């Protein structure tokens, strides 16, 4: 039987782009369908970068040029069934829907997970009410793929700087970029309190790399596309895939159905609608889902596929964000440079105090997450936060929020719970008439306790760095919803853009959805190349790990596994 393409890929974000680059390098061909628009690169050789990204707060932050438009593609959210069918409709953890996906406007801190993150249950033990499991693969299995995606994305970092990091087969391909002024203060204060901050490994060029220029510190980074393509957005990977001549990229094409054979054991291709609304099918030997950990389960549930375990959509994880902010008596010019230049990992490794806090709360252990040392947003967002009237001007003039605020954002580990899930909303539809995805999500008590334990430490660091005042908040709100929560610009739903776990990986088809090679247990020629496969959320940004897993899946599929790397001696 002839097929239209050997592989068809849903989604062009970091996961799909990594997969496409790998298989085309090994001589396979693919068609990549992306529902969003193409603002990233020309579709004719030499696939030059496009030039529509800019330092424009209106376009990116207030008129969401990268999509998805919540009027066309609403999502819904509720904490649990007591909220009724939904608590809100609109933007729920929306990541851009565009060629390049969420890679385009991420500011791309790309740390690796650590060895113990892949065996959380063995290392720390089970937690009541949570499905804490080990991953079916280890850090050692993934190390060569980590090293390779760090090179292909282009990550700038210092491999000696983080004492908690696991072993590596080599240094980062680029040195770190410049520290932000605020970070020079907050890292020094953190060190004085015994913490171990380090330059964030970042997917932004610190020197010219891979034919793209060095970052020039323009400051419009997180939430914006990079006007000079210094970011490790998926442009480099997509370009290389296109340059092989074996990848066809089709933007503005939304996949509506996964096609399967009569026994529903093999995928035969996809159905999609093009920009004109016409329906097409593509046949393929392999189908790869890389629509992100929210859209992937939504598509499967819509088709009722690959769900013999009943776990598709379940174990939805975010990072529970603890935001500690400090107000400084002087200006920090946080609008210069990338959005975040430093991290610290200390709260991922429980110390004596964390163990005591856990014991007192009746939990076996608690872990937080990486803490990002960063600054605040643009002036429109700042202005909207203040009240109207005569008081507005002094607030903007002194700029307590934008220019004198330093923020720690902790991406706290979120334990997997089967009741947290993506499913189909019973009433709300998207523009194509398909049921909207609905998130049902409430943090586990572990997250509440961990946040409460760590926030005061972060506040102490801020005060030590020279802040006059400091307070902390969380997203989502961890208590009952108050009037204040309703006004909070972060919203009621988790603000986290890290979405994971909805098709978890495992060896047992009754307790997991995909196998250790990222193939669906029920449909072996269907693969997943996004963070839906994560078993646990860890406390690290998901993107480097999801790209490493996508690369590994592509290498294993095409029979080209990367050679194992060795832990350096000593």
């Amino acid at each position: 039987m002839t097929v239209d393409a050997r592989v068809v890929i849903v989604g062009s974000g970091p996961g799909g782009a990594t997969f496409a680059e790998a298989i085309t390098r090994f001589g396979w061909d693919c068609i990549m369908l992306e529902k969003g628009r193409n603002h990233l690169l020309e579709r004719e050789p030499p696939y030059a970068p496009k030039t529509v990204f800019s330092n424009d707060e209106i376009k990116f932050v207030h008129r969401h040029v990268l999509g998805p438009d919540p009027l066309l593609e609403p999502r819904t959210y509720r904490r649990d069934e007591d909220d009724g069918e939904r608590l809100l409709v609109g933007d729920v953890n929306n990541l851009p829907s565009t060629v390049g996906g969420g890679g385009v406007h991420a500011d791309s801190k790309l740390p690796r997970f650590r060895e113990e993150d892949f065996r959380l249950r063995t290392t720390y033990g089970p937690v009541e009410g949570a499905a804490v499991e080990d991953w079916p693969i280890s850090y050692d299995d993934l190390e060569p793929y980590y090293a390779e995606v760090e090179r292909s994305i282009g990550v700038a970092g210092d491999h000696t700087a983080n004492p908690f990091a696991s072993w590596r087969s080599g240094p980062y391909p680029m040195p770190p970029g410049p520290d932000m002024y605020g970070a020079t203060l907050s890292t020094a204060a953190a060190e004085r309190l015994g913490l171990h901050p380090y330059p964030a490994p970042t997917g932004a060029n610190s020197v010219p790399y891979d034919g793209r220029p060095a970052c020039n510190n323009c400051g419009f980074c997180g939430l914006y596309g990079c006007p000079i393509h210094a970011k490790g957005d998926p442009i480099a990977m997509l370009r290389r895939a296109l340059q092989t001549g074996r990848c066809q990229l089709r933007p503005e094409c939304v996949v509506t159905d996964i096609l399967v054979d009569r026994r529903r054991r093999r995928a035969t291709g996809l159905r999609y609608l093009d920009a004109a609304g016409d329906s097409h099918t593509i046949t393929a030997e392999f189908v790869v889902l890389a629509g992100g950990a929210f859209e992937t389960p939504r598509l499967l549930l819509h088709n009722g596929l690959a769900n013999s375990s009943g776990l598709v959509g379940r174990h939805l994880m975010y990072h529970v964000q603890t935001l500690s902010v400090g107000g400084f008596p002087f200006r920090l010019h946080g609008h210069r440079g990338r959005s975040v230049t430093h991290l610290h990992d200390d709260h991922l490794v429980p110390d004596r105090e964390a163990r005591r806090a856990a014991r007192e709360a009746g939990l076996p252990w608690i872990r937080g997450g990486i803490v990002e040392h960063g600054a605040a947003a643009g002036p429109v967002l700042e202005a909207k936060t203040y009240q109207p009237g005569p008081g507005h001007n002094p607030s903007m003039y002194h700029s307590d929020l934008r220019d004198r605020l330093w923020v720690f954002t902790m991406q706290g580990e979120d334990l997997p719970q089967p009741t947290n899930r993506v499913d189909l909303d019973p009433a709300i539809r998207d523009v194509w008439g398909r049921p909207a995805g609905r998130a049902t999500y409430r943090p586990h008590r572990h997250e509440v306790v961990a946040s409460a334990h760590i926030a005061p430490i972060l506040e102490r660091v801020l005060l030590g760095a020279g802040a006059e005042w400091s307070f902390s908040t969380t997203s989502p709100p961890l208590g009952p919803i108050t009037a204040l929560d309703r006004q909070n610009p972060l919203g009621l739903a988790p603000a986290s853009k890290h979405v994971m776990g909805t098709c978890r990986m495992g060896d047992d088809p009754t307790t997991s959805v995909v196998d250790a090679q990222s193939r669906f247990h029920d449909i072996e020629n269907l693969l997943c190349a996004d963070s839906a496969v994560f078993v646990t959320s860890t406390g690290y940004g998901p993107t480097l790990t999801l790209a490493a897993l996508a690369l590994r899946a592509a290498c294993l599929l095409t029979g080209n596994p990367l050679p194992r790397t060795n832990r350096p001696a000593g």
Partner: protein
Amino acid sequence: MPVFFTDAEYAAVAAACERLLPADPELGAPGATRAGVADYIDQLLGAFAFDPPRIWAGGPFSGRWGGEARFGAFLELSPLEELAWRTRIEGSRGLPEREINGPVVGLQERYRAGLRALGADFAACDGPEQDARLDAVPEFKALLYEHACEGLYGDPVYGGNRDQVGWRFIGFPGDAQPRGYTDAEVYRP
């Protein structure tokens, strides 16, 4: 010449926004009127009077810091983007393709209704009276405020922040490409 508002509506919007974001000569705050905030709102509500519609400015550079000035070349919308933005601005108006999850009241309608509630004589009223009338329509006041902030501190290409008066007031340089900042400008105090 406003593209969407009548002259009287324009005057009322300008007066209302000036109450929300008043000039303050002592601090050097320009205020909404001086910044052309009503033009920003008028061009948003009238975005489809232009081709391409004035929703998303072009890129990559404004020209203020070097490079070719391209912000003025507004982006074309895809058919779906046009559907979304027309629905947002004009409302669903009973058109089935715009009623994906039921009717949508558009921004134009919300402005017209809000201005009606403020009264035809709004622009001529004194400040305290204007404040009282704005307080009586809290939802419209919130909408105005949101747009007024965008018009004061957003890029001038959208019609507000005239001569960058908003940015100048707060010492914000605005867009920075292609110049960017040197490493020393990033890490030094």
